[in-house]
């Protein structure tokens, strides 16, 4: 039987080993005996377009990496601004992810390499769909893993499951309440007479699709507008980038701190499909570097802003598949297979790159061209669902995958 108290203490020990412990930790340790009224929160970030994981968490100890990518490889770590930031002597971060290094060093950022979906598809659409439904190869799953990860409740918060953006992603669809919110301040019916009439109409309509969404929308609007009344300043001097990802994470942080009952949140960031000119004149410029810059700063700002509250929060990132091990003919990479995932939070045993490294020699590659898979993405998500959210019904969250092999990112 899994003990929450035990995992807090063991992750604490790991963190003391790694350097300075954050302020929340000692308080969390003292508080561990008292029952926590606060729910755990899981934030999922989808990097749409298939991020090139090999240039994000770089296997700089792998000779074949440099042989396969004469124009794209990030130079081995040498302390200069355009070389890999070493993590463990074999892997290192892309230099534009420098803001994540202190979190890794503090033991709250874990990385899984060679992870992904076992389904062989190289279609963005199918692969994203499979990763969101949580059922690779199964196209008829209409709900998503993040919705199923919620435990049935008698009186659930109307904002227990939120996606930041104008669409409700497949990952959050399902029978538990889940709402899409484009931005907190615009999320309301501006005309007061309209608001009450629409609430009644959508509450009573026989149109089942619109009735469900309508009711959820109005419940959520009330809760969000209560939060939105007071102005917001991120804590700890956190500076969120102006891009969509940063702004969405800031609003998620805001909902978390307002204690509105948020349990799972989702946001996505597009633009990772770098078939052409992935890397600019040097590694820290160009399309991939720009996205990583924004990505690293956004996550770091979220971490700083939440401060102590990170004890309750885990952030996990995913992208539908990786990219070809070898660069293509246009200074980019084509659709590949395995990728990399990040997990950040107070409960994460960070400071480590998880997963078995499959190697990049030709015979080690998937279909002789892509990084092979050694961890199923459901192993990572499943562990977060069970050990972080405390939902042990793994077989219903990931149907057909009842025996995941947890990587022990937690506990």
């Amino acid at each position, binding site marked *: 039987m899994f003990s929450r108290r035990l995992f807090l203490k063991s992750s604490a020990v790991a963190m003391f080993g790694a350097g300075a412990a954050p302020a929340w930790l000692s308080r969390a340790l003292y508080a561990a005996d008292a029952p926590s009224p606060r729910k755990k929160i899981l934030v999922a970030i989808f990097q749409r377009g298939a991020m090139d994981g090999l240039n994000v968490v770089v296997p700089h100890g792998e000779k074949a990496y440099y042989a396969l990518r004469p124009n794209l490889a990030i130079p081995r770590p040498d302390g200069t601004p355009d070389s890999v930031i070493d993590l463990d002597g074999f892997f290192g971060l892309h230099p534009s992810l420098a803001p994540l290094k202190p979190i890794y060093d503090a033991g709250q950022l874990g990385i899984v390499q060679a992870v992904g979906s076992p389904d062989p598809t190289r*279609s963005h*659409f199918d692969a994203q769909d499979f990763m969101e439904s949580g059922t690779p190869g199964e196209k008829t799953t209409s709900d998503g893993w993040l919705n199923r990860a919620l435990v049935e409740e008698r009186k659930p918060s109307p904002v227990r499951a939120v996606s930041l*953006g104008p669409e409700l992603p497949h990952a959050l669809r399902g029978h538990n309440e889940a709402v899409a919110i484009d931005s907190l301040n615009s999320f309301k019916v501006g*005309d007061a007479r309209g608001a009450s009439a629409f609430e009644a*109409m959508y509450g*009573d*309509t026989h149109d089942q699709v*619109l009735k469900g*969404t309508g009711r959820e*929308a109005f419940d959520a609007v009330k809760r969000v507008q209560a939060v939105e009344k007071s102005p917001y300043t991120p804590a700890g001097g956190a500076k969120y980038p102006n891009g969509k990802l940063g702004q969405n994470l800031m609003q998620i942080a805001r909902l978390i701190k307002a204690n509105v009952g948020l349990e799972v949140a989702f946001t996505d960031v597009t633009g990772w499909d770098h078939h052409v000119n992935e890397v600019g004149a040097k590694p820290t410029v160009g399309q991939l570097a720009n996205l990583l810059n924004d990505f690293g700063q956004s996550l770091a700002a979220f971490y700083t802003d939440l401060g102590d509250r990170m004890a309750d929060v885990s952030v996990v990132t995913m992208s539908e598949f990786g990219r070809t091990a070898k660069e293509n003919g246009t200074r980019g990479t084509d659709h590949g297979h395995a990728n990399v995932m990040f997990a950040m939070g107070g409960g994460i045993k960070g400071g480590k790159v998880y997963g078995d490294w499959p190697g990049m020699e030709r015979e080690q590659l998937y279909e002789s061209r892509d990084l092979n898979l050694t961890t199923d993405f459901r192993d990572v998500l499943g562990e977060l669902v069970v050990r972080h959210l405390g939902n042990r019904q793994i077989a219903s969250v990931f149907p057909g995958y009842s025996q995941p092999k947890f990587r022990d990112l937690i506990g």
Partner: protein
Amino acid sequence: MRKFFNIAILSCGAAILFNDAILPADQESPQFTKPITGDQAVLHALGRLTFGPRPGDVEKVKEMGLNRWIDLQLHPDRIPRDPELAARTQSLEDSPAPAALAQRPRTPLSPRQANALRRATAEEDMFMLSRLPENEEVQVLAAMPLIRQRVIAMLTPELQAKVRAAARGPLVDAVKTNGKQAGQKLAQAKFYRALESDRQLEEVLTDFWFNHFNVDAGKGADRILTAAYERDVIRPHVLGHFRDLLEATANSPAMMFYLDNWQSVSPDAAVNRNRPKQAGRGLNENYARELMELHTLGVDGGYTQKDVTEVARCFTGWSVQTPRLNGPFVYRDAVHDKGEKIVLGVRIPAGGGKSDGERVLDILARHPSTARHISRELAQRFVADDPPQPLVDRMAKTFRDTDGDIRAVLATMFNSPEFFSEGAYRAKLKTPFEMMVSAMRATGAAVDNSAALAQRIATLGEPLYRKVEPTGYSNAGEDWINSAALVERMNFAMDLTANRVEGVKVDDSKFSADPAQAARELLFTNASQQTLDAIGAQSDPAVVAGMLLGSPDFQRR
């Protein structure tokens, strides 16, 4: 089960033997066999073939006869063009950047001099360039990117800056300014056309086919290439033969740029040996994959990774002359892969040129998976999110029998009992664009300026011309419904009838204060009791109208 059956038949290459008649009749949901007739059928057809009825449309269609009206919409050339609309949209749909074209940097050198520069080493180039006056040296380097890259590091910082500015010059600026506006201007024109054109089906189909062959007007050169793409590539073929439409997209700079094919070259093409800068250039699979997955066969259409690579080889050299200057499309034989290819089991012999890609288009356009994929997409758009399979099969048969005649496939669909059935009636939730346009058509709104509309639609979840992914937007209505988008639909409805949308004017004196009567005027049928109850004793006509347009009743077509 049925799906599996089809794939199994397809994979043994006998799809042509597939006969709809062998399908047991009970495979059709009973809802799709109950007919709708009379005013209901007219309203239904208006909801599917147009962007929503205007006041008086139901009567006009009845007067003409429903079948005649549908046939007329299938032949837009028989409907007179509206000169006012044409004048309104023309400047918005003009391809930008002719000014930039005129200012394109030109080298003052003779071709022989330029060649000498190309063949020389960096040091030799420097020597030759130093013989020119400085302004000419800058001009040469601005116009010749290869030489520029070769020598730029050897120039003084001041000269480097001058060269870079001259090279970037008006071109990038033109792309940037036009870029900000390009998608926006097109979106404005799209609103005008959907609101005002009498060739409504043509507009609905242009929306459908643009989305099927999606490009993103926010990506690089597509900021200036998208206008011509919709005007010259998509629109002329929306009711033509699928093969022609497919070929037009494959030959368009907008598509070649969007899916990166313009840079895809044979890894061992001769040109690479003479241009060290391009060594290492090679294949890019992006277009080849989406061509099969999205444009033709469908993701389960029976192709492999090997086919993707082979198709990519066939399309090497299909490129764009100068992407940032409105194209045009160019085929570069020198970088084409001349080897033998095998695509979906068909051998394409070595030594071919542009014909390799054309052969691929032939194979794909005539493949039975394509007939089925396109038919299903159309039925999903026009009939129901999960369209009845027997209908899709009959449409696919028409597609095969007519060599992909889109008009004939549509006629099969519009003449089917499934189309005029209870299963189809009000089965489709409107897209954000459909919702906004139908609300303005129903209210007879006068749109002086659609700029605010073009901005606003993003908050309902459908930024026009800005779908980043090649999948385009979903054809399934239910995918558009979520809390954020729904709230914004209500806000738009209330703002529209209260005249709070900039550039749009509704005449609220025309609205009835009685909700039941107002419903018949705006919904063209009775509102549900729940909607009327919620409106209650509200008596401000503009408010009543807004509530009706934001109601669940109005979100379906």
